[in-house]
């Protein structure tokens, strides 16, 4: 068992190492095949481990590789409990489908091998993150994920926008990382250890509310950076500059789910700090609404999906903030299915449209790309919250739990409900503008269905988007039974949806919201693309000018400060010191050069001086 799960973790790393050295020399499609194989094998191994847990086998297993920082008592060890197994399954499952899809999508790219090396690195990073059994390993995975996202977002670094997007993602993530790091220091200072078992075990007794609030707010900052929540969401829409499979990987399987996972994992700490939990849920609700409104006015198909991801992550934060960790992780999983599907479908559309991403230049694609259309329609219904598709079950469970908490939480529920309506609206808008209506293609563009290697992953994800939600219905909460031990082990008290008729009413209300959204969008976009480039639409399209505000507030000032530092501090200070050392050495050498007379006999005299000196020293030491 240990070997199995260790292998599951190491396979993507092996793939990365191999491809990093030999990937560029292998002809297409071998790097892709290798990378997909490692990801797929990793999935199979994780599946065996997961089935073992379901079958009543090992429920918790800690695998220690070696002592990493003995001074801090930190070990490189990995925890396998239902939560991390589920995360591993999602990461490797969706990840390997995306790998397979990329074999077709990246066809002809000059850095084909490197792309798959990075993809495998990304998988490995994410697996490290979700399986680490202490905060230090979690942090390593956290940073590795940041690194690989940087590498992949700016994969086409010839484009200045892509390079800038990669930088932006990295820098914004760093801001969150600062919070995470501070939280780690506080935790270590309080508990003297970073191991999950010890920290979560002692937390209820040892942690005061004030300190818990401080730690969890810092954790939240880290999670907001990684999971693109307010106010650190700005990197994610720009991350669309990467190749589309990368977007799918970042948005669905890896990276953005890290924050949700981390909040769920540290659930006990949030439970001890009700204020922080409330802040988490509020940030989630605000982000959900905020991003949904922006998504309504986007024309770039990938930007719609990007803001949609931010919005859906808001739901997950709402869930974990309300202590509905199972519901949050459940939504994470279903979202992984349909968002990966949406992104891969969008990639298929872009692929067929020869790189065109503007929905105003699409339309009428349903006829020429039937498979892409069919699968994306499934995802559309799933995200809009129409039963029995996957999104309905998970989103509804979150909303039910939030409503059940009563009081101020009802406001959050209302925001969530309205966001659901908006979600249905903008997704329907996207579907109509892309697949419905008349063709508005540019001249010379001949859309075509994508190759089979791209369509098959779409179909698999489509099936998962249909049935994925059924593993955790109110009638048969399989996932909840599966995950509960993981949270119980860390003393987390899960919130549950209210009993009785209330959930039914809530479910019908949210279905109604979804249907209203779909209907409104259908009415507006069925036959034409209205002019949406003025007034409030413009404001929404530009994302409330948040980017411009950040640019004015931080980037301009920061740039000026950096230039000043480069001119005065770096050039005069650092460079001056370096040059000064060189000049000093030169000056000393000029003075000392005459010592090297070139006359052997002078050197011999010098040797004799040393000999006499040594002799004198021995004699004084000898007591003469």
């Amino acid at each position, binding site marked *: 068992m240990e070997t199995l799960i260790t292998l599951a973790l190491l396979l993507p790393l092996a793939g990365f190492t191999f491809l990093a050295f030999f990937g560029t020399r292998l002809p297409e499609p071998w790097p892709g095949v290798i990378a997909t194989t490692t990801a797929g094998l990793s999935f199979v191994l994780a599946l065996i481990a997961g089935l073992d847990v379901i079958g009543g086998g090992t429920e918790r297993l800690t695998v220690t590789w070696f002592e990493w920082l003995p001074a801090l008592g930190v070990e490189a060890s990995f925890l396998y409990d239902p939560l991390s197994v589920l995360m591993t399954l999602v990461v490797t499952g969706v990840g390997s489908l995306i790998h397979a899809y990329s074999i077709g999508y990246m066809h002809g790219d000059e850095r084909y091998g490197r792309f798959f090396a990075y993809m495998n690195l990304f998988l490995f990073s994410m697996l490290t993150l979700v399986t680490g059994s202490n905060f230090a390993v979690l942090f390593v995975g956290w940073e590795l994920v940041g690194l690989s996202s940087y590498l992949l977002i700016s994969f086409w670094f010839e484009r200045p926008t892509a390079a800038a997007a990669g930088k932006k993602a990295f820098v914004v993530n760093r801001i969150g990382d600062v919070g995470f790091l501070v939280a780690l220091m506080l935790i270590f200072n309080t508990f003297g250890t970073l191991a999950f078992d010890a920290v979560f075990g002692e937390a209820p007794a040892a942690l005061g509310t004030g300190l818990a609030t401080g730690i969890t707010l810092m954790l939240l900052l880290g999670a907001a950076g990684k999971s693109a929540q307010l106010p650190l969401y700005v990197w994610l829409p720009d991350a669309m500059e990467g190749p589309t499979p990368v977007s799918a990987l970042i948005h669905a399987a890896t990276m953005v789910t890290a924050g949700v996972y981390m909040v769920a994992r540290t659930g006990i700490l949030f439970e001890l700090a009700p204020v922080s939990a409330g802040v988490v849920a509020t940030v989630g609700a605000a982000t959900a609404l905020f991003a949904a409104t922006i998504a309504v006015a986007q024309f770039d198909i990938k930007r719609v999906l990007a803001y949609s991801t931010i919005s859906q992550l808001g739901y997950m934060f709402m869930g974990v903030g309300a202590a509905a960790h199972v519901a949050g992780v459940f939504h994470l999983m279903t979202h992984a299915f349909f968002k990966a599907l949406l992104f891969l479908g969008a990639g298929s559309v872009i692929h067929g449209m020869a790189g065109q991403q503007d929905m105003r230049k699409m339309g009428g694609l349903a006829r020429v790309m039937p498979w892409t259309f069919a699968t994306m329609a499934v995802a559309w219904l799933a995200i809009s919250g129409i039963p029995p598709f996957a999104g309905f079950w998970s989103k509804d469970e979150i909303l039910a739990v939030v409503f059940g908490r009563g009081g101020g939480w009802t406001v959050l529920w209302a925001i969530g409900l309205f966001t659901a309506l908006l979600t249905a609206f903008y997704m329907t808008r996207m579907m109509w503008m892309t697949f419905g209506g008349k063709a508005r293609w540019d001249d010379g563009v001949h859309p075509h269905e994508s190759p089979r290697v791209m369509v098959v992953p779409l179909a698999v994800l489509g099936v998962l988007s249909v049935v994925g939600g059924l593993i955790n219905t109110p009638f048969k909460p399989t996932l909840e039974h599966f995950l509960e031990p993981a949270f119980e082990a860390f003393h987390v008290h899960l919130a549950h949806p209210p009993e009785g008729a209330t959930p039914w009413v809530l479910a019908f209300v949210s279905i109604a919201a979804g249907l209203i959204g779909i209907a409104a969008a259908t009415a507006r976009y069925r036959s034409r693309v209205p002019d949406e480039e003025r007034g409030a639409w413009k404001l929404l399209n530009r994302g409330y000018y948040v980017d411009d505000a950040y640019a004015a507030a931080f980037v301009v000032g920061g740039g000026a400060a950096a230039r000043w530092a480069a001119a005065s501090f770096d050039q005069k200070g650092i460079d001056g010191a370096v040059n000064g050392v060189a000049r000093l050495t030169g000056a000393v050498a000029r003075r000392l050069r*005459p010592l090297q007379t070139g*006359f052997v006999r002078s050197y011999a005299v010098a040797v004799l001086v040393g000999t006499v000196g040594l002799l004198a020293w021995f004699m004084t030491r000898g007591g003469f």
Partner: protein
Amino acid sequence: MDLTVTPGWYMALASVLFVIGGAGLLLRRNALVMFMSVELMLNAVNLTFVAAGRELNVLDGQISVFFVMVVAAAEVVVGLAIIVAVFRRRATASVDELAELKG
């Protein structure tokens, strides 16, 4: 008067020979003479080895002399070859002429 020749006498003689060799090394410019001075210094040390070996009743002193001789022979062979090579190029055996590497 009973004068026994103790090893100390040999040691003293070896010291004097060693210093004379050192003087030759430091004061003469001829590379060949300098080489001979080095040989003299090595011989002085050999004498101390043999004398000390007799004092301490161990044969290893004499064994050491063998090794010193071998090293000295190797050194002489290479050194003389260098002198010949230099002489072919510069037509001099004075080490003071060979000062290209001065700072």
